[in-house]
Structure formats: C-alpha cells, structure tokens
C-alpha cells in the first residue's frame, strides 16, 4: 500500500472508530453512530403509558390502529414516540392535528388502494393510553385510563 493510501485508510478508521467512541463515551446518538441505549433504562413500574391512534368509523366506534399495513411506513413505536415529542412542544396543537390528519388520509388512501382491509374511517383520535401491564396483555382492550390528545374528523359525507 502506498503512503497516501495508508493515510486515507487510517483517516477512515479514525472517523469510524472515533464516531463510535465519541457516542459511547458521551452517551449520545449521531446516526449511523450510536451508544445503542435501547432497553438500557430499568423499568421500575408495571405501568405502561403509550400514545396510540384510534380510527373512528361511521357509527362512532373506535378501533386501535395496530396493523402495520394501516399506516405504513409509520409504525407503532415511531408513531407513539414521534407524536409524543410533537405533543410536548409548546403550541403543538396545529402540528399535532396535521400529523393526525395525515395519518387519517394515509389510512384511507391505503384502504382505497387495497393495501389493507380495514373499515372506512370518518375520523381519527390520538389518545394517551395507560395500562397496568399483565401477562399476555389480557387487559389490552380495557386500559386503566385514556386521555384524548388530538382528534380529526373528516368533513363532508
């Protein structure tokens, strides 16, 4: 290997390893580097708080939107964490409503395109849901509390 090439390769090694070391030592994430903190924080309580979108059909029944095909590429984890982050911003109301409206539009567009077989929706509600975690999630349908965070209903017929 020539000298210039050797310097170039060492530069690349320094960037790749330096990025990893920096994130590990400072406990930060700079994608594609990371300190890989997933699941690191110990849970001390069996209470689970989660932001969840519910579809509203024409008889005002609510349906938790769980199937990945409903809102793809948005998924349960990304939606909850992303929407919570938006909700915690000052004056987040209009942005949150726009996000939920986009989810409703996405659901309906995908339903009409045959990407999923869910019912037609006339609205969507974002709740902060709380469960006391039990084996096999047998209380999934009956959370201990639900708080409405945002709501969007389609206008017209």
């Amino acid at each position, binding site marked *: 290997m020539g000298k210039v090439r050797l310097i170039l390769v060492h530069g690349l090694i320094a960037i790749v390893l330096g990025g990893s070391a920096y994130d590990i030592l400072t406990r930060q*994430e700079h*994608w*594609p580097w990371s300190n890989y903190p997933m699941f690191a924080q110990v849970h001390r309580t069996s209470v689970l708080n989660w932001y969840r979108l519910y579809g509203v059909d024409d008889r005002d029944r609510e349906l938790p939107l769980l199937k*990945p095909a409903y809102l793809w590429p948005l*998924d349960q984890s990304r939606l909850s964490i992303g929407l919570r982050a938006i909700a915690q911003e000052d004056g987040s109301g209009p942005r949150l409503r726009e996000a939920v409206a986009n989810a409703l539009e996405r659901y309906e567009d995908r339903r009409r395109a045959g990407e999923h077989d869910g019912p037609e929706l006339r609205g969507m509600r974002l709740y902060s849901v709380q469960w006391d975690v039990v084996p096999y*999630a047998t209380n999934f349908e009956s959370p201990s509390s639900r708080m409405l965070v945002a709501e969007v209903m389609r206008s017209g017929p």
Partner: protein
Amino acid sequence: MTRRLAMLPQAWLRFWFSPEPAASLGIGRLIFFTLLAFFYLPHDFSAWGTVSLAYWQPIWLFRWLHLPPLSPGAISTLQAIWKVALFGAAAGFLTRTSMAVVAVLGTYLLGLGHNFGQVYHFDAILVIAFWVLAFSRAGDAWSMDAWRRGSPAAASGEYRWPVQLILVTQALVFFAAGVAKLWTSGAQWFLSDHLALLLQRVQYHISDADPLVPWGSFIASTPLLYHGMALTTVVVETAYPLALFSRRLRAPLVVAGMALVVGIRALMGPTFEHFLFINVFWVPWHRLLRIADAGPARRTAPPVSSVQET
C-alpha cells in the same frame, strides 16, 4: 513495558494490514450485497415522501447536510438507482462505482425514516459498512471486474483492513449496548425484574413489529429464565470485542450475538433481520475455499499404500 509499547505500532499494522488473499473480502462483498439486494428489492422507500412534514424531526446528519424529504417520485428514482447499484456491487460490476453509489444513496434512503419520530438501530452498521467497502478494493476477486481483468490479485493488506474495520464496528455495537445497560442501570439490569417487564410490555403492540412468538409472558413468569437471559445478554454484549482477538471465543461470541438478535426479534419485535447480514464478514472464506479445493484432490488421490505398491 517500554519494549511492549515499542511493539504496539507493529501489532497495530498486523491487526489491520497483514496480507490476506483477495477472496475473503471478495466473497464477503458478493454475499453481503446479494443478501441486501434481495432484502431491499421489495422495500419501497418512496412512501416516506408522502408523510406529512408535521412528523419531520431531522437527525443531525440530515440537518447538517440540509437534506430534505424528497417527493415520492424523486425517492422512487433514487431507490431504483440504489437497488441496481446493490446488484452491481454484489456481482462486482464496476464495483467501486457501484459501491460508492450504494454508500451515498444508501445513507439517504436508510437514514430517511429515522427523521420521522424515532431513530432505529437496525441499519446503522450497514451504512458504515457501505462506506468502508466503498473505499476498499472488494472488487479484486469474485467479481465481473476481476474476471474481465484476468490476472488474479496478490495477497495484500488491502483485503484485510475493510473486513477488520467492519468487524471492529460490529464489536463496538454490541459493546456499546452492554456498556449502556451497565452505565444506566448497573447490575439492576439483570438482578431486577426489568427484562420480565420488558417482555410483558411488548405484548401491547408497542414495537415497530410484534414479537414472532408469544413466549415473552411465559419467560416473564420464570425468574430463573429471565434473570439468566438478562445476565447472558450483558455478558455477551460487553465481552463481544474479545471475538476480534481470541480464536477460541470467536465462534461462541459471534453465534451468541446472532442469537441475541434473533431472540430480540422473536420475543420483542424490533426488526433486526438485516443486521445479521454483517456476520458474513466473520467467515474466513479463503480458508474455506482452500479446504473445498483440497477436498476433491484428497478424494481422487490414490491411497499412499497403493502408490507404493506400483
């Protein structure tokens, strides 16, 4: 002590640049990009172009480079070029160009989703591997480029450092995960009921995909099982870098690392499947080739005794 310090530069050069045949890197490239090409072939990134900007929470790289979410049409074009480049890199056709395109477009396409609410860790190491390979001479063997060129490449450090850098990066991924657990929670990570709670929580559809098997609640009801699994996880993750230096520990640690990834996917949901592809670089392909080459020769050679008789 001084003597040992004086040996460090040599050890460093040996670790990264000992001459290796081009085959290991070449076969690693071929398998790695083939797996990725088929994995991503049905994947449509253009849907990100239809997600409202209300969700846009850019990560540092996109903020720093002022990278916007493009329109669905533009993303479709980029992903078509990227997928062709993945197959090109796998086949070793215009290898350096193909791998450079894979790295540049792959950084955008794989990074795009992380700007919409959450940063996942499934594909970060793939992007780093793209860039390492883009600077490598991975097309010097087992490629259309090498076949057209004709003359085989001589052993060189050029064929070792990319593999080593990818493996060190992977070792750091596991090590970081182990350190994060110990740093954040200490021994409580495996002494408390934390893992049991985690396994119960994911039954509530909170991950990017649901667990493949519903065994989490059973494991969560068996303290010996979940404490054992938690301790094993931390030990494997923090000890993983030893795989780089110990031949004896390499296979068990690499297999244990793969089992962790499979276990997370099966019991908890996160879709880490493509993270497994990086493991192709642990295989010493040139040694396997030598064994495969020696095999038929051994089988066809007459027994020594019969040779002596004639």
